[in-house]
Each structure stands twice: as structure tokens, then as C-alpha cells.
């Protein structure tokens, strides 16, 4: 038993490495105060963007300065290079959402939204650093609770309905996960899952209860990343939440979930020693996720709902990297996640723009919009092509890398399920193109029902420039993927 003095010094030492999170916490408090004192949404949004930038910069510096993994707060948290890198991606996601929220009426009209988003980010930070199941649970809750509130931010009937749905599903998933954790605790007597004795204990555990416990635990994580069969909340929540919130939901919590799943999957798989073939099981889940995501998206008329299913399909693609189980696969997952964040937020920015300016939500209502928003139309085409994963976009490179690691895994293990996943995943690209082209199709191929008046000005909006920068980055990542990959290569994913 360490003395109180030791504990205090541990906490103090940890606090140094906990800088970005402390910054976040004080930022959240500051935002609440600002909201109370200044009744101007402009100020709130400026402060939020500043805060997000500041957190991003501190996280980036922390990543750059980090040499060896550091255990924080008596090994509840582990700050290693993957955690530091994931935090940066989450920060980028939140920063982009904050910029995008500049046009979000529901978020701007109520100042609470900003602290809620940062609370979610705090949960994400803790989740990617978590090395203790308790922290995993707490941080997932810390992500979820603001999410439930944000989902209802339209404050109308549908919004509240979907938020309640989301809450119920979320509560069940959390309960299952907590229950699974308690079972696991009985095997290991320990919640710190990166300790060797934790793995040893699991190796000696009885297989049937262990499997049940693992399935229970997995369901909580699958819920967060919106994988089948725990995806049902996503389309509803996406359709009736404010678009900026959807952009957030589809990226930040999902990526945080993936970072912990990637870590946790190694544990579940007992580093390849498990007698249950978790790789095949997760591969099948990935296949079903791809299938349901893509096929359901085909039939949607609401653009946000379609993109919700598209993000479910992308979950399937990212799970491809998880089942490949290698350090390189984790790097490729990270690459995919980065590209995915950029393109998803970019596309939602444009969706929000048209929703706000033209009051349109359905794909067919986009018809003829190219005449009024020519540049926006071009950007949407590029983004959809990137989401579908065709060259010359970063979406293609990401897919190429993920499937490369899958091929290597197949080559190494000769597990036929991986081969099916490989072929199936690529064929799904063809299906996905069909719905990704829907919006450009209506926008460009169909004429508006109310023909444009001669004097009507083409709209110049700041979103075009914002998204143009993101699109340029996405294109750049196709032509020079090494620029990002060299950075990612410095992350040591082995643990």
C-alpha cells in the first residue's frame, strides 16, 4: 500500500500529463460562465473555436513531446502514442464541427450546446487513454450523456422521440457492458486490462462464461461505433438531430469507440490464443454491417438518413482494419479514421448549408441546385466520390490501405472468412456508389421546378471555402499519402 504522500505525488505528476484535459474542463466551465454573462452566440462560438484550437495545439504538442508511455492516476489512464494521436484526431473533429456550427441555428440559439460538445470530447479523451475497464465505462457514459441531450436539440417532437430512443438503446448497451465487466472482474480480480496478469487470468478462465462476458462487453462498444446489430439508433438520431450534431456523432464518438475497440479486441482475442475465433466473428459482423449499411442507404430519400447508413457502412470498412489484427492495420485504421473525419464533416457542412438556405432535406429536393450553387455542387461530387472510395481521393487510399492489411492478414492466417470479407467489402463499393451518386444526380441532372430567375445571384458562402480546404486535403491525401503516413508511422500501436 502506497503512502498518501506517494499517491499525492502520483496525482501531481499525472496532472502535468493531464494538461489538455484540465484545459478542457476549465474551458467547459468558462463556456458556461460566458453563456450566462454574455447573451451573444457569436462570442460563444468564437470562444469555442478558440478553445478547440487550444486543445488541439496542446494535444499535438503533447503527442510530439511524448517519448514513452506514461501511466496516469495509478494506471487508470495510459498516455501512449496511439492515445495521444487519437486525441488529436478527435480534437480536429470537434474543431471542424465548431466551425461548421457557425451556421447551426439550433446550436447557436442555446449556449449549453458548446459545453456539451466539449464534455463529449472530454469523454473521448478519457476513452482513448483508458487502461482500466472502469474508466472505459465512465468515459463511454461521459460521451453518451451529452449525446442524448444534443440529439434532442431541435426541441421538437421528433427530436425528443429519437433522443429518447437513443437514450434507451444507450442505457441498455451500457448496462450490458457494465454487466459484462462485472463478470470479467470475477475472473481477473482486476480491472486494469493492460496488465499481463489480467490476460493470464482470462486465459485460465472458463470459456463459456468468458464468452458471455465478452459478448456483453462487445455489445457496448459496437453500440458506440454503430455496428450491426447495435446500429438501430443511428438513422433516427441522425435524421432528427441538428446537422452539426450529426457530423459530430458520426465522427468523434465513433472514432473514440474504434480506438478502444482496437485495443480491447487484442485482449478479447487473447493475442491470438483465444479458443473462440473472434476474428471470424467480428469479420461476419463487419460483413453484415456493410451489407445493412449499404443496402438500407439505397432506399433512403432523406439525405441525412442516407448518410447515417453510409456511416454505418464505413463502420464496416473500419472493422476490416480491426479484424486484420496487426500494428500496420491499426495504422491504416488511423489513416482511414482521419480521412473519414474530414470527408464526413465536410459533407455534413454542405448538407447543413443547403438545409439552412433552401430548407431542403430530401435528395430529390436537391434538384437543379447546381445552377444556384455551382461550386458547392462540384465539392459534393468530390466528397461523394471520396466517401465511395474512388480515386483520386483520400477515401480511395484509405480503403486501399485497409484492404491491404486485410489481405496480409489473410495471407498470414489463411482464414477464408477474411477472404470473403475482402471480396465482399470491395463489391460493396459498387453498391455504395449508387446512393452516393444520388445527391449529385438530383443536383446536376434534374432541373429545378421553379426555373431560376435571370437576375438571381449565385450564392457565395463561407462554407464553400471551408469545405474547399477540406477537399484539397482529401485530394492531397490521395496524391501524397506518405505525408500523413510518415506521421502515423511514428505511433507505436503494439502494447
Amino acid at each position, binding site marked *: 500500500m502506497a503512502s498518501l504522500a506517494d499517491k499525492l505525488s502520483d496525482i501531481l505528476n499525472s496532472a502535468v500529463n493531464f494538461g489538455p484535459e484540465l484545459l478542457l474542463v476549465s474551458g467547459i466551465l468558462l463556456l458556461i460562465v460566458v453563456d450566462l454573462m454574455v447573451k451573444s452566440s457569436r462570442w460563444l462560438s468564437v470562444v469555442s473555436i478558440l478553445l478547440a484550437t487550444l486543445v488541439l495545439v496542446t494535444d499535438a504538442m503533447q503527442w510530439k513531446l511524448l517519448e514513452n508511455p506514461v501511466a496516469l492516476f495509478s494506471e487508470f489512464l495510459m498516455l501512449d502514442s496511439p492515445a495521444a494521436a487519437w486525441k488529436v484526431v478527435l480534437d480536429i473533429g470537434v474543431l471542424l464541427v465548431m466551425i461548421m456550427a457557425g451556421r447551426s441555428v439550433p446550436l447557436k440559439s442555446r449556449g449549453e450546446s458548446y459545453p456539451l460538445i466539449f464534455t463529449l470530447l472530454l469523454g473521448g479523451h478519457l476513452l482513448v487513454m483508458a487502461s482500466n475497464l472502469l474508466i472505459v465505462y465512465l468515459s463511454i457514459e461521459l460521451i453518451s450523456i451529452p449525446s442524448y441531450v444534443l440529439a434532442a436539440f431541435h426541441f421538437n417532437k421528433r427530436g425528443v422521440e429519437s433522443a429518447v430512443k437513443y437514450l434507451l438503446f444507450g442505457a441498455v448497451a451500457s448496462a450490458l457492458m457494465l454487466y459484462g465487466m462485472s463478470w470479467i472482474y470475477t475472473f481477473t480480480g482486476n480491472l486494469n486490462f493492460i496488465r499481463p496478469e489480467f490476460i493470464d487470468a482470462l486465459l485460465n478462465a472458463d470459456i463459456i462464461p468468458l464468452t458471455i462476458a465478452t459478448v456483453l462487453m462487445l455489445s457496448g462498444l459496437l453500440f458506440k461505433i454503430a455496428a450491426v446489430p447495435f446500429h438501430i439508433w443511428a438513422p433516427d438520431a441522425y435524421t432528427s438531430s441538428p446537422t452539426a450534431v450529426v457530423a459530430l456523432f458520426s465522427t468523434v464518438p465513433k472514432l473514440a469507440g474504434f480506438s478502444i475497440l482496437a485495443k480491447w479486441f487484442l485482449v478479447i482475442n487473447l493475442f491470438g490464443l483465444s479458443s473462440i475465433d473472434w476474428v471470424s466473428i467480428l469479420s461476419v459482423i463487419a460483413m453484415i454491417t456493410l451489407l445493412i449499411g449499404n443496402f438500407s442507404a439505397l432506399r433512403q430519400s432523406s439525405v441525412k438518413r442516407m448518410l447515417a447508413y453510409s456511416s454505418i457502412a464505413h463502420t464496416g470498412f473500419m472493422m476490416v482494419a480491426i479484424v486484420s489484427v*496487426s*500494428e*500496420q492495420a491499426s*495504422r491504416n485504421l488511423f489513416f482511414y479514421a482521419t480521412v473519414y473525419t474530414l470527408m464526413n464533416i465536410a459533407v455534413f457542412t454542405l448538407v447543413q448549408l443547403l438545409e439552412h438556405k433552401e430548407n431542403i432535406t430530401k435528395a430529390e429536393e436537391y434538384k437543379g441546385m447546381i445552377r444556384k450553387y455551382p461550386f458547392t455542387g462540384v465539392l459534393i*461530387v468530390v466528397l461523394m*466520390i471520396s466517401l465511395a472510395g*474512388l*480515386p*483520386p481521393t483520400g477515401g480511395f487510399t484509405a480503403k*486501399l*490501405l485497409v*484492404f*491491404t*492489411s486485410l*489481405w*496480409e492478414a489473410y*495471407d498470414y492466417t489463411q482464414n477464408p472468412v477474411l*477472404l470473403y470479407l*475482402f*471480396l465482399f467489402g*470491395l*463489391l460493396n*463499393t*459498387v453498391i455504395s*456508389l*449508387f446512393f452516393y*451518386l444520388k445527391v449529385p*444526380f438530383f443536383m*446536376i*441532372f434534374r432541373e429545378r421546378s421553379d426555373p431560376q430567375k435571370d437576375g438571381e445571384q449565385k450564392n457565395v458562402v463561407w462554407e464553400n471555402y471551408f469545405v474547399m480546404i477540406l477537399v484539397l486535403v482529401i485530394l492531397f491525401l490521395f*496524391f*501524397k*499519402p*506518405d505525408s500523413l*503516413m*510518415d506521421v502515423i*508511422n511514428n505511433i507505436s500501436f503494439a502494447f
Partner: protein
Amino acid sequence: MLQDHLLSYLIFLPLFAALGVAVLPKKLHSYSRQIALAVSILQLILIAFLYLNFDAGQKDYLTTSFQFTERVNWITLDLQGLGKLSAEYFVGIDGLNVTLVLLSVLILLIGVIASWNIQDRVKGYFSLYLLLNASIIGCFVALDFLLFYLFFEFMLLPMYFLIGLWGGARREYASIKFFLYTLLGSMLILVVMIGLYLSVIDPAATAVQIGLSNAGTPVSMEVIAKVQEMLKAGAIPEAQLVKTFNLIYMTDTANLIPASVMDTDVTRLLMGSPARLVAFLFLFVGFAIKVPVVPVHTWLPDAHVEAPTPISVILAGILLKIGAYGLLRIAFLIFPDGAFHYSWWLGFFGVLSILYGALNALSSKDLKRLIAYSSISHMGFVLLGMASLTAEGVSGAVYQMVSHGVISAALFLIVGVLYDRTHDRMIENHSGLISKMPQYGVVVVIFFFASMGLPGFSGFIAEILVLLGAFSASGYPGMLPKWMAMLATLGLILSAAYYLWTIQRMFFGQFHIKKYQGVLNDLTSREILMFVPLILLALLLGIIPASILDMINESVNLFVVTILEQGEQNLQIP
């Protein structure tokens, strides 16, 4: 020097012009067609230079006979444990693609002239057209798989919009069908591409990596041989290997990593068959969709019928050749064992396309649909010629690509001329046209005869070579049987039948047009300007076959020798 970057100029000129056109201010929109024309004329000058400087003389190996090459490092991705991934900007031409580049530039120029009357959204049209131009040229000259794939895929996008926005009544259906079909093929190609690049190393870059050679200096042949030896002995750690998309390295089995999926030595199974043969089949299906080969041809009649005339011209004249070229350059050369093993089936699908296309053409009521099906039939000859794996057959296949490029382009222009005047393409609604449009009638007769393979026209030489190849291939056991060549000959007869019948129905007899009431003008000078070079070319290629054969002979001979030697050597069937 011009010589050093000629191919890059060919690619990037239209690319930058496309971007330029895209940002033209509203007042200058109408100049976009002039810009497109200027680009095409500049390209024509460039290829004239290329034609004059192309060295068709004797070569040692197919893999070292590239000219006008340009090679720049593009992507070097460190995959750590898996080695390095390297993709290059690598372009060059040899006898297999030189004629196709020449053809493309020419057809693209004619396409611009044919597009001159486009009034709707001129800026968008020509900027997409120029993008298409760049990706077509890029596709033909790329010698790096990733680069090839980039252009191959990217081409779909402008094509999709060009058909979908400027096409006929069912354009939306046709364009998405075209896109999805071709994308399905691309995915099969992508599967093989991933498998291949993980199996093939760049021996020169690997030599640098393991310190056998210095960066920046050319790597000698001895060092390359040493690296390949070390590779086979497993003496290079995987993290040091430089895995490459280079199509030339992929053809050399010495660069295959031992026990990798595409390795020839192990009988690796993929879904129950040897992996290399499966890979060949994937590539075959992927490219066959583009050719198209029956039974994966169904997108073509729709796309052709709905596409605007200039785009049909490009589609038939050039895009179909990309499929066939992909088969030659990628499927055959990288997997000669597959080409050797499946030659019977390739020949079979070739003959099937010839006959099925011809029979469908015979029953078509729409002139454009008839020509679309005749395209399928004539592309069947290309496949049959390749499948024969003889020098005659492969020369014939390459010849047929050029010849069909010229003739089918003209045939679609012919349909366009009629449609511009009567807004109708139904054969039964027209008769006796020759009395009102004598010049048009002459052009039609010339090209119909050229397409049915009348001696004196390019089609004759091409098809005769293919048939010769197919007949002589029947001398080898396990290759094409005689009946295939005989059935293919039947395709010639059928094509004579549908063309003659069409001439009889539409051009002879009493003048009558069902729908149109106005004056029927004969060819305008712009239209004559499009047809004259095509007529001259069809005649020139028909009378002086050496004009093409001299350029391609050396490469074709090396191609056939390589395929046969390596095909037999690499083939392993458990």
C-alpha cells in the same frame, strides 16, 4: 526537351485546359470549344512528333523497349513490417500502345469537331471533355498499375456526366448503368492489384534499400539479378522489401516474393483454384466488361444509344480499346500462364461476342443500336486474335483496335448526322435517303463496306489477320480449335448481311421519312471535315498495312514469345 516530357504534355495539357475552362468567366463561356479544339490540335502536333520519332526497330526484350519514358517517384509509403509501398509516375510507349495513343488523339479531335454545335452548358461540357481526354491518354501510356487504375477509374466520372447530362431520353438510366457496370469490373481489378503489389518487389529500389546500390545512381543489371536471387533465397527481411505497382516489374516472375499469393512456385489456392489463375480471371472479367465481351456487354447498347453523338464516338472509338489494351498489357503480360491456360475460353467468348453481336445487330430496329451491336461483334475479333496467342492473331487484334476505332467512330458520326436532321434513328422510318443526300449516302456506303471487311479497307486486313491467327493456333494442342475460326468467319457474313440490308432499307427505294417534314440538307462542310480524315485513314490502313504493322511488329512478336514461353513455364495446376 520535348522528347523527354512528350507524354506528360499529352496528359497534362488537356488536364490544365479542363481546369482553365472550368473557371472561365461567364462572358467567355463560348470560347471553351475553341480551347478544346486548340488542345486537340496541339496534341496532334505532339503525336506527329511522336510518330516521326518512334523507333520501331529490333528490341531485345518487351520490357526494355519503352520509349518516351518518364519516371518519377510518386508515393513511397512505409508500411514498416510489410516493407515499403512504392508507386511511380511512370509513362512510356511501345508497339502495343503507340497506335492507340495516335488513334485516341485523332478521335478526340474529331469528337471536338462533332461537339461544335453543343449549346447547352458549353463550359461544363468541354471541361468534362478535356478531363476525359486527359484520362484516356493517361490510361494508355501508364506503366504503373496505380497510375493506370487512377486514370481508368477517373475516366468514369466525366463519362457519367457527359452521358447523363447531354444524352438522350433514357440518359439517366444508361449513365448509371455504365458507371456501376464498369465500377464492378474495376473492383475485380482492384482485388488483383492489391494482391499483386503485395507480391512484387521493385528490385532496383530494394537494392538501394538494402545497401547494394546507392540512391540516385542507376542500378546495374548484376545488382538486380543479385537482389532477385536474394529474394528467392529469402535473404531479404520483409521490412526491407520495396513493393511496387510497376507494371514492368510485375511481368518478371523473378520479382515475385517467394510464397506470396501471386508466386508461381507454390500452388496457392484462392477459392479452390490456383491463385494466379483466379487473378487472371478477375482481370479478364474486369476488362471484359469494358471491351465489352458477351455476356457482360449489356451496358453498351444503352450507353451508346443514349450518349450524345461525340461521346458515342469516343466510347466506341477509344474507350472499348482500353479494355482490350488492359487485357494485353496487364492480364496477359502479368499472368501469361492464365492467358495460356484459358486461351480456349477467351477464344470462345470472342466467338460468342462476334456471333451474338452480329445477330443482335441483324435484328436491331434502331440504327444506333445496330451499330452498337456491330461494335460488340467487331471487338470479339480483338479478343479472338489475342486468344490465339500467335503473332498474326495478336497483330490482327491490335490492328482491329485501330481499324475499329476509326470505322466505328465514323459510323456513330453517321448516325449523328441523320439524327441531327430527322430526330429519329429508326431504320424503318427512313427510305431512299440517297436521293436527297447523295454525299451522305456515299459516306455511309464507304463505312458500311469498310466495317463489313471489304478488301481495300482497314477492317479487312485486321480481320484476315485475326482469322489467320485463329486458324494457325489450332495447330497447337489445347489451343483454339478450328471451329472457332470457322464460326468467326460466319460473323463476317452476318455483318455483310446487316449492313447491306440496312443500306437497302434506308438508302435505296422510294424516298420517304416518317416524321420529318422539312428540308433534308446534305453534309455540311463541318461534317465533311470530320469524315474525310476517317475515310482516308480507313483506306490508308487498308491499302498499306505496313503503316501500322511496322510499328507494332517487333513488340507483338516479343509479346507472343513471352506469353508462350512464360505461360508454359509458370503454369502449375495441382
